[in-house]
């Protein structure tokens, strides 16, 4: 792919964790605030909650023809099943983000740049574990340049239920700060 910015991202977990919402927030951040192109396709089972699901996001300066992701640059896994199903597809040097408490990673994975964060536990401490996805988005914002952190913040604010903006932005900051610390090796 030519033309600079190009990221393929898979966000995976189980239904109810806000996986698809995260995909949508990423897409909106790119589309509306970074003014570049994005696509989002989702795969899910017939269950409303609890089934494995994933969001495929592509962010690109160029027009995106094919919206599915086979070898992502970034993989976010919020459940063990989601991790097992997708880890082999993550390309060499790709960025892996997992929930520390929910995913047991393979040992000695030298192919990827791996980070983990207890997102669900942190969200629980903030009062609602349903914000784990937003903690992870903040975490992603600090560890990757796929989209601008400020754009993501704006998109979070615009996408979460009315009245919960402040709490969610707090969750975002928690994740962001944890990422910053880990990046600089102090976390």
């Amino acid at each position: 792919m030519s033309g600079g910015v190009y990221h393929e991202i898979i966000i995976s977990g189980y239904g109810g964790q806000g996986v698809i919402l995260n995909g949508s927030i990423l897409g909106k951040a790119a589309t509306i605030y970074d003014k570049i192109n994005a696509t989002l396709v989702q795969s899910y089972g017939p269950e409303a909650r609890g089934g494995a699901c994933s969001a495929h996001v592509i962010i690109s300066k160029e027009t995106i023809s094919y919206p599915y992701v086979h070898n992502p640059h970034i993989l976010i896994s919020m459940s063990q099943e989601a991790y097992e199903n997708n880890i082999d597809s993550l390309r060499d040097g790709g960025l892996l983000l997992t929930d520390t408490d929910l995913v047991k990673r393979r040992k000695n994975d030298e192919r990827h740049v791996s980070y983990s964060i207890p997102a669900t536990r942190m969200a629980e401490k903030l009062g609602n574990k349903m914000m784990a996805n937003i903690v992870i988005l903040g975490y992603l914002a600090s560890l990757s340049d796929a989209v601008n952190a400020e754009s993501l913040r704006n998109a979070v604010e615009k996408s979460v239920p009315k009245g919960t903006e402040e709490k969610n932005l707090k969750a975002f900051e928690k994740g962001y700060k944890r990422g910053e610390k880990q990046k600089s090796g102090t976390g």
Partner: protein
Amino acid sequence: MTGVSKKKRLLLQGNEAIAEGALAAGCRFFAGYPITPASEISEVLSARLPQVGGTFIQMEDEISSMGAIIGASIAGVKSMTATSGPGFSLMQENLGFACITEIPCVVVNVMRGGCSTGLPTSPGQGDVMQARWGTHGDHPIIVLAVSTVYDCFDITVHAFNLSEEFRVPVVLLSDEVVSHTRETVTLPQAHKVEIIDRTSPSVPPEWYIPYESNSRGVPDMAAFGEGYRHHVTGLVHDMRGFPTQRPDEIKEFMNRLFHKISNAIKRIQMVKTYMMDDADVAVIAYGSVARSARRAVMDARDRRGVKAGLLQLISLFPFPQHPVEDALRRCRRVLVPEMNMGQIVREVKQVNQWAVRVEKYNRIDGQFITPDEIYSQLIK
């Protein structure tokens, strides 16, 4: 969402864009029955139509949904329904009624996999011939296919315009991939969207002859309730709208029905081309598969120097004969990938008078055709 009052970048799903396109085109009546993967169209319109003074009805099934939109259109309101294969089958009888009575309406079919209940959450393109020939008897109809979220908006508007201009039902074919993909899209401002309305009679009610032909072969259409009394029947009718058995009247009527479309084919046929200028291998594709094809064409050029091009069909019927002939005349090989056993490929072969190799590539396992699959066919 607040609609299309100003130009705005959005991340929109195909189905949402179809709903917005319908609203922009002036659709003010929707009747439907929910079905995956088309339900979001109903969902959006159930919220949006009342905001603009329109009507949304969830019907008991797809037979009545089709009946309801025909009724609304006779009353002068632009109308639409949306469904998937199983519901589209149920609509065929009333769709034929709309064809013979020349009632404008738009029927969206978001194609899924398989026949019968098939594969509700998987994409397919198996309803192409059904869209053309699903209702019995010789009849004219227009069938359009969308491949991007922008298309979903733009071509839906176009579907309404053609339907109104030619007084013919228009079937808009989407598929699970196009309808469920969310994508960056910039919608035009409402007042910049070109809208065509059916022509109303310019004569007083007592002079109105409801099916009298004119230079376009498209009679003026009076809305029920405006004092223009007329008879509407599925039987073959004379120009006053009453059943006829006279061969001369039948022939004239049938010819007009077909000629109003065939005489305007150059206006109706619609394609997009990508890298076709110097292409010697062409992919002819439509719907979501055109997305993969575009990428495959790009890859074949970049990686292998293959002079590939894409001819994307927007209008499937009337079949865009002239652009397809043009591609066949200039290329040594044409590939037609489809998520069915090969439906449009037969139409391509039918206009192939130059012994050009027309190959098909088909997938019927509920999976989307990938760029790599088309690429490997292109570099063979």
